[in-house]
C-alpha cells in the first residue's frame, strides 16, 4: 500500500525537480517543439506547491486528484491535459482500490495519457517513458539508471505525435521533452521510496 505521506514526499521532490530543470526542459522543447515545456511544467509545479501547502492530505485519492486538477488548470499546452489525466486516473484507481499496487496505479495513469493523447509506443512522447517504467515496476527492477536510459532512448525515434511530428526526420537525435519530465517524475518516485512500500 502506498502511504499518503510517501506520495506527498514524491510530489514535493517532483515539484523541486521541475523547478530546477525548467530551463533544461524548455531547451529540449526548443529543439523539436515550441520551447515552453519547462515553463509549462514549472508553472504547474509552482501552483501545485501552493495547493499542497494549503491542507493536510489523509488519503492518496485526494492528493492525486488535487494534483491532477492543478496540472490540468495550470500547465496548459499538450502536457497539461496529459499529466492532468494521468493523475486524475491514478486518483480514480486509488479510490477504487485502497491497496492498489504501484504498477497498477501507474498503469491507470498511462491509460489516462493514452486515452487523451492517443499516442502508442514509439511515437516519441512521454508514453515511451511510461511503458518501460511500468514494466520494470511490475518486475521490481526499476532503477534511476533505467529511468534515464528510457529518456535517452527517445532520441533515435522519429516523432509522429505532438509538435515534434512537424519536424519529421529532423526530430531524430533529440530527447523528447515530455519523456524527460516524466523521467523526473519516476526518479523522484524512487527517491521518495514509493516503490519500496
Amino acid at each position: 500500500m502506498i502511504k499518503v505521506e510517501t506520495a506527498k514526499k514524491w510530489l514535493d521532490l517532483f515539484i523541486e525537480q521541475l523547478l530546477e530543470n525548467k530551463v533544461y526542459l524548455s531547451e529540449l522543447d526548443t529543439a523539436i517543439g515550441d520551447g515552453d515545456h519547462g515553463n509549462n511544467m514549472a508553472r504547474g509545479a509552482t501552483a501545485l506547491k501552493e495547493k499542497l501547502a494549503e491542507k493536510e492530505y489523509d488519503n492518496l485519492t485526494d492528493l492525486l486528484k488535487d494534483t491532477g486538477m492543478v496540472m490540468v488548470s495550470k500547465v496548459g499546452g499538450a502536457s497539461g491535459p496529459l499529466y492532468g489525466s494521468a493523475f486524475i486516473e491514478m486518483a480514480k484507481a486509488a479510490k477504487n482500490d485502497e491497496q492498489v499496487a504501484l504498477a497498477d496505479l501507474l498503469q491507470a495513469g498511462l491509460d489516462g495519457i493514452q486515452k487523451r493523447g492517443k499516442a502508442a509506443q514509439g511515437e516519441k512522447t512521454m508514453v515511451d517513458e511510461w511503458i518501460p517504467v511500468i514494466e520494470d515496476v511490475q518486475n521490481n527492477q526499476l532503477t534511476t539508471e533505467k529511468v534515464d536510459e528510457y529518456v535517452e532512448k527517445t532520441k533515435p525515434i522519429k516523432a509522429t505525435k505532438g509538435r515534434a511530428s512537424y519536424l519529421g526526420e529532423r526530430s531524430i537525435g533529440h530527447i523528447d521533452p515530455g519523456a524527460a519530465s516524466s523521467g523526473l517524475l519516476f526518479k523522484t518516485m524512487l527517491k521518495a521510496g514509493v516503490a519500496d512500500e
Partner: protein
Amino acid sequence: MKKIINDPSAVVDEMVKGLVFAYDGLVEQLPDTNVVHRKADKNGKVGLVSGGGSGHEPSHAGFVGKGMLSAAVCGEVFTSPTPDQILEAIKASDEGQGVFLVIKNYSGDVMNFEMAKDLADMEDIKVEYVVVDDDIAVEDSTYTAGRRGIAGTVLVHKILGAAAEEGASLEELKALGDKVVSSLKSIGLALSPATNPEVGKPGFEIGADEIEFGVGIHGEPGYRREKLQPSASLAEELVTQLKKEFNWQSGDSFALLINGMGATPLMEQFVFTNDVHHLLQKEELDLAFKKVGDYMTSIDMEGISLTLLKIADSKWLDYLNAPVTTIAW
C-alpha cells in the same frame, strides 16, 4: 529582447486587461480568467467560443463581438489555454442552445478543448466543435499531428459567427464548420522569428538574406529555406502550393485573406497583395471576398500568409460580408 513589457510572465494578464480596458464598451473579462467575453445582448443563439495560446493578436479576442465570437480564451503565450478557463468561456457563452468551439489543430489545443467539452457535458451544456487545419505547409498524414490551424481560422470565426447570429443551430454550425474547414487552405513564410517574451530569445535562427517557406505561427519549421527574393517570387511560390492543393478551374469563386505575421508593415502586405492579384488573375479565379492585414500574428515575426477559401455556397459570402462589432475584423 527589446519589448514594451513589464514582467515577461505577466504579459498575457496585462495584455488582456489592457485590451478589455480599451474596448470596455464591447467586451468584458470573466473574473479570475483570461477569457474575453462580449457584452452584446443574449438572444438565445448558439454561443461561439475560440481561443488558444496568446501571441496571435488580434486573434482571438479581437474577434469577440456581435456577429463573431461570444468569447475568446487567451492562453499563455504560444500555450494552449486550460480546460477550466475554456469551461468558463463556454458557460458564459451559453444562451440555452449550446456552444460551438473553433479549435486550431494543435495537440495541446485539441486536448484542452476536448477536456473542456467533457466538463461542459457534465454541466449539461451541449458542445460541438470544429478543428481548423488549413496550413498546407504540413504533410497531412498519419505520421504527423495533422495540419496546423493558422490564419484561415479567422474566416471560420466570421462565417460561423454570422451564421450563429442568424440563428443557426449547433448541428447546423457543425455541418457548416466542417464544410468551411474542408474548403480552406493557407500557407505562410517568414523572414524573421518571433520572440516569446517568456523565453526571451528568438524561436529560431535564420540568415539575414534568407526566408523560410511554410513556417508555422509558433515558429514551427517550414518546408524550405531560400535566399531572399522579390515579393513576386514569394507570391508565386505560395500561389503554386495552393493551386496544387485546390486544383482550381478558371471561374472558381474564392475568398482571399492575406495576413501579416506581426512585424511586417502593411506597405509590404499590399505590395505582396498586388503580386498575388496578378497571379490569380492569370488563373481567372473569381475573388469574391478579399481582406489584407494583421489577423493571425506570431508576436513580432516578420512574414506573411496567404489563405484561400473555396466558396462552396454563395451564402458564405453573405456571412463574410455581414456587419460585425468587434475590435479587429
